[in-house]
């Protein structure tokens, strides 16, 4: 039988269309891998075995009848448990939604369903996406498939781990402050955070609505591009969606003499040395810039995001859906006992911080001030992009950290120091593997940031980098049980 490991979308599509492998065989390959290896990786929350085999058989029947299939048709993928899936349990990795069966499906998932992609499983994450290691899941701690003693990152840690472990060809994640890029970096895979508003948030469990973005994690930038084009678009059910002219234009951009901005603080980072070498060979120009201060961006983020969280998470009241405390005697108890019993510490911490920042007397000092600093960060990026097409940084300061190493909440927050400013400004950014840490042997990654709406440009540059280097060619055969 053909070796099905490490497949990308195009390769899998060709195997299916040419009849070299059936879709049932492909889906079974991933289901078997999950059953064999996920006991230790713990990336899967809900396996959709029956439905995925059912769709696979339909794809096989279509191919057998001599019809052409679409590029994503029959392509198995996983999705973070933030995406509502009608009839399939969706938890946000929180006990409060432990029994929740959504009555409708998120737009991004609907788009993938229509294109014929096959949802294999819902994957783990930090509870309500609050965290950077997937250790905050209420159900299980996902491990890094490259080394089980280390975290996979987060909050889309289940997605990144599933792609690295070859449990499906891509995964859908969400990114509010780095939650696609940071775990992709820690697991040695490619993660794309699109421009804010490009992909509908309808049916995505809300964290911080002015920040939340939906995007793919895959084994290559080429695959993230295919998925982005399948899920992007204006949605009547999400009035914050926008259409970017850049995306409707031709897909592959000519990449000549790109002006790349680089902050002098990062010149000696492994991923940057690798990027400089590669991009200078292809004729791009690297010039010195000064990025918005990381600590300042993080500070604005940790006022604004908990504030939006405190508002968005009001809906978990133990009344309309989700769990309810059976000790409750009156309505007040229903709220407070349910939320105490079924929400984790980090979720409570953020709700309380946000409630404090928004409360009378503190609003100007915290919330309004942080919104103004958000403007300062956006202005700084606008200034940078007058002379640059893109900006490069390492995605994270270092490689994945050991499980249990960041017990202090602020230490955990700081793992997003190089990614949050991008979310404050709503910019598109991609994380791609670009080296290996000498100490741990774990991957180090490069972040390419573009102007709002320049998603195609950052993807094109990432694709160029991956056509000239091999860092993204992670071999899943190295992942052992």
């Amino acid at each position, binding site marked *: 039988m053909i070796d099905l490991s490490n497949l990308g979308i195009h390769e899998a599509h060709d195997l299916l269309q040419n009849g070299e492998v059936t879709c049932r065989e492909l889906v079974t390959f991933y289901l078997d891998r999950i059953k064999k290896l996920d006991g230790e990786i713990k990336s899967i929350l809900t396996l959709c075995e029956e439905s995925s085999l059912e769709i696979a058989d339909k794809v096989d029947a279509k191919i057998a009848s001599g019809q052409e299939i679409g590029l994503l048709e029959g392509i198995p993928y996983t999705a973070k448990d933030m995406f509502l899936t009608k009839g399939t349990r969706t938890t946000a990795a929180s006990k409060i939604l432990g029994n929740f*069966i959504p009555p409708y499906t998120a737009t991004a998932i609907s788009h993938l369903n229509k294109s014929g992609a096959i949802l294999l499983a819902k994957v783990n994450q930090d509870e309500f996406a609050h965290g950077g290691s997937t250790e905050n899941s209420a159900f299980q701690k996902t491990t890094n498939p490259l080394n089980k003693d280390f975290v996979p990152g987060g909050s889309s840690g289940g997605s990144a781990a599933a792609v690295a472990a070859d449990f499906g060809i891509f995964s859908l994640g969400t990114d509010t402050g780095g939650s696609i890029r940071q775990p992709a970096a820690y697991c040695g895979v490619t993660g794309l955070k699109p421009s804010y508003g490009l992909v509908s948030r309808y049916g995505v469990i809300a964290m911080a609505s002015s920040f939340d973005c939906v995007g793919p994690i895959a084994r290559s930038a080429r695959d993230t591009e295919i998925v982005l084009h399948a899920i992007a678009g204006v949605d009547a059910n999400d009035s914050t969606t926008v259409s970017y002219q850049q995306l409707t234009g031709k897909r592959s951009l000519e990449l000549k003499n790109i002006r790349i901005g680089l902050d002098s603080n990062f010149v000696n980072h492994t991923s940057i040395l690798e990027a400089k070498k590669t991009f200078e060979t292809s004729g791009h120009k690297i010039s010195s810039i000064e990025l918005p201060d990381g600590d300042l961006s993080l500070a604005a983020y940790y006022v604004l995001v908990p504030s939006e969280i405190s508002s968005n998470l009001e809906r978990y009241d133990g009344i309309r*859906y989700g769990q*309810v405390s059976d000790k409750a005697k*009156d309505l007040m108890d229903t709220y407070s006992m349910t939320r105490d019993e079924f929400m984790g510490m980090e979720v409570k911490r953020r709700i309380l911080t946000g409630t404090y920042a928004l409360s009378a007397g503190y609003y100007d000092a915290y919330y309004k*001030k942080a919104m103004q600093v958000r403007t*300062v960060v956006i202005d700084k990026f606008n200034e940078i992009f007058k002379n640059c097409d893109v900006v490069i940084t390492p995605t994270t300061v270092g490689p994945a950290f050991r499980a249990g190493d960041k017990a202090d*909440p*602020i230490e955990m927050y700081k793992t997003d120091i190089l990614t949050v400013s991008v979310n404050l400004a709503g910019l598109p950014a991609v994380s791609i593997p670009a080296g290996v840490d000498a100490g741990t042997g774990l991957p180090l990654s490069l972040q390419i940031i573009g102007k709002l709406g320049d998603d195609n440009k950052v993807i094109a540059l990432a694709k160029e980098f991956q056509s000239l280097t091999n860092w993204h060619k992670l071999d899943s055969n190295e992942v052992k049980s």
Partner: protein
Amino acid sequence: MTKVSKDIVENIARLSRIGMDSQELELMSRDITSILDFVETLESVDTESVQPTSQVTGLKDVWREDKVNNCRITRDEILANAPQTKDGYILVKKVL
């Protein structure tokens, strides 16, 4: 440094409808104090004449016609997730 006392935490926990025991209040008092200490750096920026940003795309007034659209979710499907229902309604505990 702003110290967020246990009493203040107790008040915001009540506003947030999260029941908390004394030990949790203590822990949150410590954590929120250090979070606010961390975000204090915001004060170093002069924002005198800076407009606040609440969204990044600049979209304004997204309208649609005021009519019921094609909602495919039935009452039963929605009520299926409610912990307690009666006669097609959601049941709550006594209010007072």
